């Protein structure tokens, strides 16, 4: 553990924080281009967040302490998760602190706090959003765990750096089970981040919304933190895809500045590609009815389960 490792770690967290709104801006821009609209500037999400930080935070008179606390908890878990996921280099100090299962726990903590805070004030929309979020979560969490189990079965470790290092450094091989989990994980990404077939990120007042319904009562700096953590969550899911299914260019041990530079460049390229693909997918598909969501996420769970079975077949030779 050298001082350089710590510098790289802190740089990684700061980069994730800075890149998250930028990534959201990039997805929005691609989407606008695909829909033949004039695109908002790339830094529009930063402006929105800065504006919210300058505004006063209004809080309902019957809100409890939980309501004030929740944005900080959600933001804190997301930053911790950003430290755990190896995005630019693998052997960073924090990535050893928590494995992939703890990461799922971090996401679950954020979800529970957000849902509780949404129910806290007692408005109809907040409760509705919280219930829908939980309906998505009860299927999405086991599916996420199954995806991680497949990757762990292949690499015999639940630590994310070990998984991505093994997948990045071996000779060319095709894992059918990983291919299926990649599809399952993409479906989970859409469901967990309120993207199009599940929820429309572009609306603020609609009966079918999930995420926006939960945060309707927030304003000012609280809302800014929540928006920032939502952007961070999307970035983290894309980073997870990058480190589980496309771990190339990940500077194996954080040995020197050169490896780090390669890692940053590869990460930026993966993010750009991932954002473009996300925008294309969101433009092609229509939003689903809320009652069809369990089928959609159940299909992701099914694919992940099937991939585990497949792993046992190919692992038995």
């Amino acid at each position: 553990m050298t001082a350089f490792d710590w510098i790289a770690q802190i740089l990684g967290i700061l980069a994730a924080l800075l890149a998250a709104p930028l990534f959201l801006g990039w997805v929005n821009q691609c989407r606008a281009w695909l829909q033949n609209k004039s695109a908002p500037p790339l830094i529009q999400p930063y402006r929105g967040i800065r504006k919210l930080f300058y505004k006063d935070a209004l809080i309902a008179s019957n809100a409890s302490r939980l309501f004030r606390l929740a944005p900080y908890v959600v933001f804190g878990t997301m930053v911790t998760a950003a430290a755990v996921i190896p995005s630019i280099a693998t052997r960073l100090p924090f990535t050893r602190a928590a494995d992939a299962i703890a990461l799922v726990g971090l996401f679950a903590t954020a979800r529970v706090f957000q849902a509780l805070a949404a129910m806290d004030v007692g408005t109809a929309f907040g409760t509705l959003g919280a219930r829908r979020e939980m309906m998505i979560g009860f299927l999405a969490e086991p599916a996420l765990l199954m995806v991680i189990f497949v990757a762990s079965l292949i690499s015999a470790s639940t630590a994310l750096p070990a998984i991505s290092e093994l997948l990045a450094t071996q000779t060319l091989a095709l894992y059918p089970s990983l291919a299926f989990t990649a599809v399952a994980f993409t479906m989970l990404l859409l469901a967990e981040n309120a993207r199009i077939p599940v929820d429309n990120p572009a609306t603020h007042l609609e009966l079918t919304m999930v995420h926006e319904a939960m945060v309707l009562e927030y304003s000012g700096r609280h809302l800014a933190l929540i928006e920032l953590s939502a952007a961070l969550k999307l970035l983290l899911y894309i980073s997870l895809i990058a480190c589980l299914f496309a771990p190339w260019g990940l500077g194996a041990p954080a040995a020197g500045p050169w490896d780090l530079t390669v890692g940053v460049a590869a990460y930026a390229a993966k993010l750009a590609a991932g954002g473009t693909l996300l925008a294309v997918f969101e433009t092609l598909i229509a939003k689903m009815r809320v009652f069809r969501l369990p089928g959609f996420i159940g299909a992701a769970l099914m694919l992940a389960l099937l991939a585990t079975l497949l792993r046992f077949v190919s692992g038995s030779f």
Partner: protein
Amino acid sequence: MPALVFDIAHLLAGSLVVMSFVQLYQDRLSALINVFAVHALVLALSVAWQAFAQGAPHLYITAAIALVFKAIIIPVALRRIMVRLGIHREIEVVVGVGPAMLLGIGLVALAMVVMLRVTAEADPLAREDLAFALSVVLLGLLMMVTRRNAVSQVIGFMSLENGLVLAATGAKGMPLVVEISVAFSVLIAFIVIGIFLFRIRERFDTVDMQALDKFRGERR
């Protein structure tokens, strides 16, 4: 055997199982027919890859038969039947999508447990092929059980037969004559079923199999 050859065979056979699940998930008839065409296409690819991996050129003929008959002719014919019966907008599921999927996962697990234990000494390529083939057969049966519409039951039957072809190609030394005769008997079965569909429709004004239950005096 190079690992990559095995991996690709594995991926294709696994995709066939996934396509069977997609069939279970679809409750619209026109989409179901499209998925069936893709199912047959994946089968053709898988058989062609087996031909390459085993160095058995006659399997290319099997792949071509699967491609022409099952991926092109039968879906087109099914689509025409569907349009003539006027049922292309129907949605039907007896068991819900979720329970059907869970049952399907159970069947796949069962097929793998049985096949991997029974065929312990076989060639790895044949072994995993047999495990997946049994899953596809069982999923086809499940499809026939969970659907009410006669056309989707036919699709279940046809995808079951796709599983049999996969099993046949995995086992080395299956004579071509047997495969060709199986393919043609399925085609003839399809023609007979097609005629039956129209007869059922004439007699009962529907292709919903519940009408037949009622006719036999069975009450639900």
